[in-house]
């Protein structure tokens, strides 16, 4: 091993250690920032080490890439927090694109001389990478509402998907047997691109947290496969960490919906709706002043945000109302369901942006025991995550999904744009319960008006 090689491997070792330490620091918000700076330093070390790689002779293309990448990456870090899900999806697409292009380039350069094992890893890398690219782009455009968020389904969809998948695998095997036939390789890659599209179009926006986590996982595993092709440990380590992180998150998200990954991917949820629900009777509309009085004289108020808070950009208005109530001595808490919003942790980030301290943000399991002692639970643009049918009606499509049990609170106020059903199209018996009052209108406007009304009380 030459000195140069030792230096290079040294930087990779440092990078690997810093990545792990960085992720470990994410176990607490107080240490998280320092840890991420360490991880970024690890990345810088690995990049600088690689720039001294003995094979690199021409820095022109590298410089173009680095500058162009920064020029696009930096503005992408400046998006508003409400756009976090689509930004992350887009970024998964870029990560996977890089991995698949490295794979394609390796094949173009070395061809069949890589040997079957490395070609196998390369094939996996390109397949996973390519389907993540198109899948993430579809997810991003659904989240950005460039295309409709409802599931797109057609007859025989599952059969088409299965056939496409089998074709992709067949060409992969054919190519492994005849690695010189580039046409097999490119057909496989093409199938993967199309498969990514077909995989994500039947999935509704409400299931995006699972899809985002899965795509995160695929992008990571694709990087790990690159590591196998290049025999590079830091790539394997970083890719695997990303792959497993996404995998764990997808499992957590599925658990929070009481559904299996197969059900999310192939169930086409939200397209079919079961009719029999306990939802009957009439909804009780309440006035702004009634709610204001209730809030002002409450001992404890719990806000339960959902995706509606993000679309209405109401996080700052919530915070203002919360502040005012705290000034009056009301105990204010925020109950966050794991799948509220469009990506894992979405609501936490929005509320943190609005300066809500993280000590006021409670997980579902922490807030549920507190609800019976809560005077007013305020539901802001959330629907399924507070739907009592999940608990009470075994026939409901969301039966068994753990919910935030706002109906156990002494009184519930639901902020809702209109009388229509929520995103999933399910009836929500919560709205018909005697304990519930409906406050219609734009969430942000309602909250701002409520703040003024509380001030008058």
């Amino acid at each position, binding site marked *: 091993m030459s000195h140069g090689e030792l230096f290079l491997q040294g930087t990779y070792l440092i990078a690997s250690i810093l990545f792990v330490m960085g992720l470990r620091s994410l176990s607490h918000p107080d240490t*998280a920032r320092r840890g991420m700076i360490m991880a970024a330093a690890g990345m810088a070390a690995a990049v600088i080490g690689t720039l001294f790689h003995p094979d*690199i002779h021409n820095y022109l293309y590298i410089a173009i890439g680095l500058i*162009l990448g920064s020029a696009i990456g930096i503005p992408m870090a400046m998006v508003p927090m409400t756009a976090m899900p689509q930004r992350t999806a887009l970024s998964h697409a870029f990560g996977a694109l890089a991995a698949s292009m490295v794979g394609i380039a390796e094949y173009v350069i070395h061809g069949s001389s890589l040997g079957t094992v490395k070609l196998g890893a390369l094939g996996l890398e390109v397949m996973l990478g390519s389907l993540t690219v198109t899948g993430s782009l579809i997810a991003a455009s659904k989240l950005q509402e460039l295309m409709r968020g409802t599931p797109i389904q057609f007859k025989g969809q599952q059969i088409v998907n299965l056939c496409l998948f089998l074709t992709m695998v067949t060409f992969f095997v054919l190519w492994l047997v005849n690695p010189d036939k580039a046409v097999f390789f490119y057909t496989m890659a093409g199938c993967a691109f199309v498969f990514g599209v077909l995989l994500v179009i039947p999935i509704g926006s409400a299931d995006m947290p699972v899809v985002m986590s899965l795509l995160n996982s695929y992008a990571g595993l694709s990087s790990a496969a690159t590591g196998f092709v290049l025999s590079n440990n830091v790539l394997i380590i970083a890719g695997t960490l990303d792959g497993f992180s996404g995998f764990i998150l997808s499992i957590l998200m599925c658990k929070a919906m009481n559904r299996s990954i197969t059900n999310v991917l192939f169930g086409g949820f939200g397209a079919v709706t079961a009719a029999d629900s306990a939802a009957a009777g009439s909804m009780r509309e309440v006035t702004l002043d009634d709610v204001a009085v209730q809030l002002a004289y409450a001992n404890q108020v719990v806000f339960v945000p959902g995706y509606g808070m993000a679309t209405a950009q109401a996080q700052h208005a919530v915070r203002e109302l919360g502040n005012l109530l705290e000034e009056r001595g009301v105990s204010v808490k925020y109950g966050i369901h794991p799948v509220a919003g469009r990506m894992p*942790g979405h609501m936490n*980030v929005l509320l943190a942006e609005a300066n809500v301290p993280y000590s006021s943000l409670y997980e579902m399991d922490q807030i549920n025991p507190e609800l019976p002692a809560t005077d007013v639970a305020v539901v802001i643009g959330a629907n399924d995550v507070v739907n009592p049918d999940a608990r009470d009606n075994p026939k409901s499509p969301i039966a068994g999904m753990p919910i935030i049990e706002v109906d156990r609170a002494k009184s519930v106020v639901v902020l809702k744009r209109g009388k229509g059903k929520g995103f999933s199209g399910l009836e929500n018996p919560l709205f018909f319960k005697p304990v519930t009052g409906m406050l219609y209108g734009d969430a942000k406007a309602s909250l701002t008006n409520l703040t003024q009304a509380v001030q008058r009380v």
Partner: protein
Amino acid sequence: MHLLFQPMAFIASLYLLSEGGARENLAFNPAVLIASLYVFALAAFLGYQVISRVPPLLHTPLMSATNAISGISLIGSLVIGGSRYEHHQTLASVLGCAAVTSAMINVTGGFLITDRMLKMFRKKDATQKDTHSAEGKK
């Protein structure tokens, strides 16, 4: 688990000592593959342990951080973009350049936005404490 891994490590390192490094061959080298699988298995185990400890509060930053870290494919792209090849030089350079660009988007964008988010997570500030000490006046 250890009982299983240790003999594997031993065999892998023996292989590496005997023939690793010395071979210039690009093709499949069983020792390197075993070592790589070993790293993969340990990284998976470690990843599971480390990431299970991240609270749901920080799941969005976790996702953007791991996304930034997986931009490590940047180092593979750098070598492709900067190397000289006998054949397909143009195609390799263009693919390398495009790969460097995409990976760099992930790295810069990912780390910057993760930091921006983590900056927002804070404990109760001073004014907040004041109102809390005043709690109970009602």
